[in-house]
């Protein structure tokens, strides 16, 4: 039910890892695996449901509540760090689904750098665990998308492209360069729980047309100030960027609402011309 061919990899390379912690991790990893899988599934559902022409609010609320529950539980038993273990030992997640969400996680703002990798929360992760055990090191580098974990940072994908996690590859870890590197931050537990309402909030959108968005006159804003624009942000999210919507080469993306840049015209999505280009980029990145 939970797994779709996900296999646990266990490497017994004889690293100097604390056996107790690993054993404890394994015992709990089955439940946390399932829980993680459920979390991933929920996040994908939330993202995908915003791709539909009319998001079903009841469904979105129920899924968001489920995500919140899982996050609260994970935060409560301090198992955010288990996320990586479970995730790593589960092996590769189906990359197709996750790549699709990655593409959607592009920022609206033009100046933000496109992030082709997801974010992981490394709360409480101990260095020796990560360094020593190879199985735990199978997280992707910043330019691969095969291993991704959407640990509750979906909202960030939409609002700003700030990273809150760390991505390392094996070589980097073996060099014991954990902790240094780029400017990514490790999210705190508090950050996780306080940020999740905001995260959830992005699901339902905000009501005012964002002042930050380029273009709208103040007069125009005034004119529409009492209009409920709860779907406005969702829609912008849906179509990616305002000028050049980039979409992944997946069928489900074809059903996106027309590009938001021309709201008064029922225009066909102009994503197909970008598909080949994106495909090409993906191939390079994934290295396949």
């Amino acid at each position, binding site marked *: 039910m939970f797994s779709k061919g996900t296999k646990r990899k266990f490497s017994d390379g004889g690293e100097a890892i604390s056996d107790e912690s690993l054993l404890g991790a394994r015992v709990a990893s089955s439940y946390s695996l399932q829980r993680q899988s459920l979390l991933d599934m929920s996040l994908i559902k939330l993202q995908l449901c915003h791709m539909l022409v009319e998001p079903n609010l009841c469904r979105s609320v129920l899924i968001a509540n489920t995500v919140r529950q899982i996050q609260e539980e994970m935060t409560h038993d301090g198992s955010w760090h288990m996320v990586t273990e479970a995730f790593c030992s589960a092996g590769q997640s189906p990359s197709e689904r996750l790549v699709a969400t990655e593409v959607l996680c592009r920022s609206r703002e033009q100046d933000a750098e496109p992030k082709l990798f997801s974010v992981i929360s490394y709360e409480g992760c101990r260095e020796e665990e990560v360094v020593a055990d190879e199985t735990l090191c199978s997280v992707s580098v910043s330019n691969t998308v095969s291993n991704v974990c959407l640990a509750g940072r979906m909202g960030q994908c939409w609002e700003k492209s700030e990273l809150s996690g760390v991505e390392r590859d094996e070589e980097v870890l073996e060099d014991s360069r954990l902790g240094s590197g780029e400017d990514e931050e490790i999210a705190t537990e508090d950050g996780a729980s306080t940020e999740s309402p905001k995260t959830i909030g992005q699901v339902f959108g905000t009501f005012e047309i964002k002042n930050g968005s380029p273009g709208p006159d103040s007069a125009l804003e005034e004119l529409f100030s009492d209009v409920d624009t*709860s779907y406005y942000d969702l829609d912008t999210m849906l179509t990616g960027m305002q000028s050049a919507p980039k979409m992944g080469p997946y069928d489900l993306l074809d059903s996106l609402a027309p590009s938001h840049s021309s709201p008064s015209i029922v225009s066909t999505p102009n994503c197909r011309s970008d598909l080949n280009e994106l495909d090409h980029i993906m191939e390079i990145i994934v290295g396949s």
Partner: protein
Amino acid sequence: ETPTTDSRKELPWISVTDIISTVEFNCSGELLATGDKGGRVVIFQREQESKNRLLSRGEYNVYSTFQSHEPEFDYLKSLEIEEKINKIRWLPQQNAAHFLLSANDKTIKLWKISERDKRAEGYNLKDEDGRLRDQFRITTLRVPVLMPMDLMVEASPRRIFANAHTYHINSISVNSDYETYLSADDLRINLWHLEITDRSFNIVDIKPANMEELTEVITAAECHPHQCNVFVYSSSKGTIRLCDTRAAALCDRHSKFFEEPEDPSSRSFFSEIISSISDVKFSHSGRYMMTRDYLSVKVWDLNMENRPVETYQVHEYLRSKLCSLYENDCIFDKFECCWNGSDSAIMTGSYNNFFRMFDRNTRRDITLEASRENSKPRAMLKPRKVCTGGKRKKDEISVDSLDFNKKILHTAWHPKENVIAVAATNNLYIFQDKIN
């Protein structure tokens, strides 16, 4: 009492071109309306019982078909508004014409369905084709005469109640005063006067100031069948609120709050989702109400708020499959439920084209299937059984071989007789009780 297929019809089902999204008998049971995903309404009328065939009941034939709603585009939000009919509710009949309300996600329309079986002939100023007569030819004055003609059933929109719902309408309910009705969307409930289309009263608003705090939505609402000041609405958290419109203009504060305490032993991540109420219906008596959540149907006494008086398991065998059903989105399916005329039995749908009926007095229940293969004319429907584990007996169906695409979400029971209408995707089945 086991429903049987309609005796006279060759086939007990009627195919419509699109997925049926709502089914509703009118107050007398003479008419049966269906709405579909394409915005069409098809009304069936029961034939008068023939004297020759004493053992037969009238069968339902198509009476009128019309396009109720068209797809629209919301330019402001760049969203398409589906034409799918979410609900149909009949008004009580007050004259020769019939009136019904039909609602899609955003707009409610009042339709008048009237018959025309006479035509005026012998006009003075125009001839039979309708062309104006040459005035010089008119030498005498005559009174037009009404002549019989083939029956024509016309549907015309009399009122359009629009622009009052930001979110998707899930319920409409006609009040017992026959003057007002309510419409509910995910976050708000409005009260309308049937004559007034340019404004409505907002009587419930659960939208939080900050949408980030949204954790609960309205899933269904209904007016009390006798007390025109009372209505209920259900939520996605499994609660029902009964409100009194006399108490305040905005009924955000409930008069009664119905919720069953959760069983801590069965708590899971899906607990909330499966507790979400998909339908709420008052009994005809007005003393009880019934709610449908994902796995069960509950009957509540309006005088007891802390727990239901009866709980019926619809398909408990799905409890162990909740994760799969979450994955394929079936867990969000909204099943409806209905009472029979005497409130002694209730009915609701399930998967694999199964539907369930529960007798409240004998506590017996039955599972039946609405499918072409298993329904022969004049034959009694065979009870079905789902095998939950272990050895599967003959004629039983195992849980894993259930078809979750074949779901019966909409059922309706004749207000007086044992006639039921069951919508299975795009087929409408009408089953009648065998006369003994």
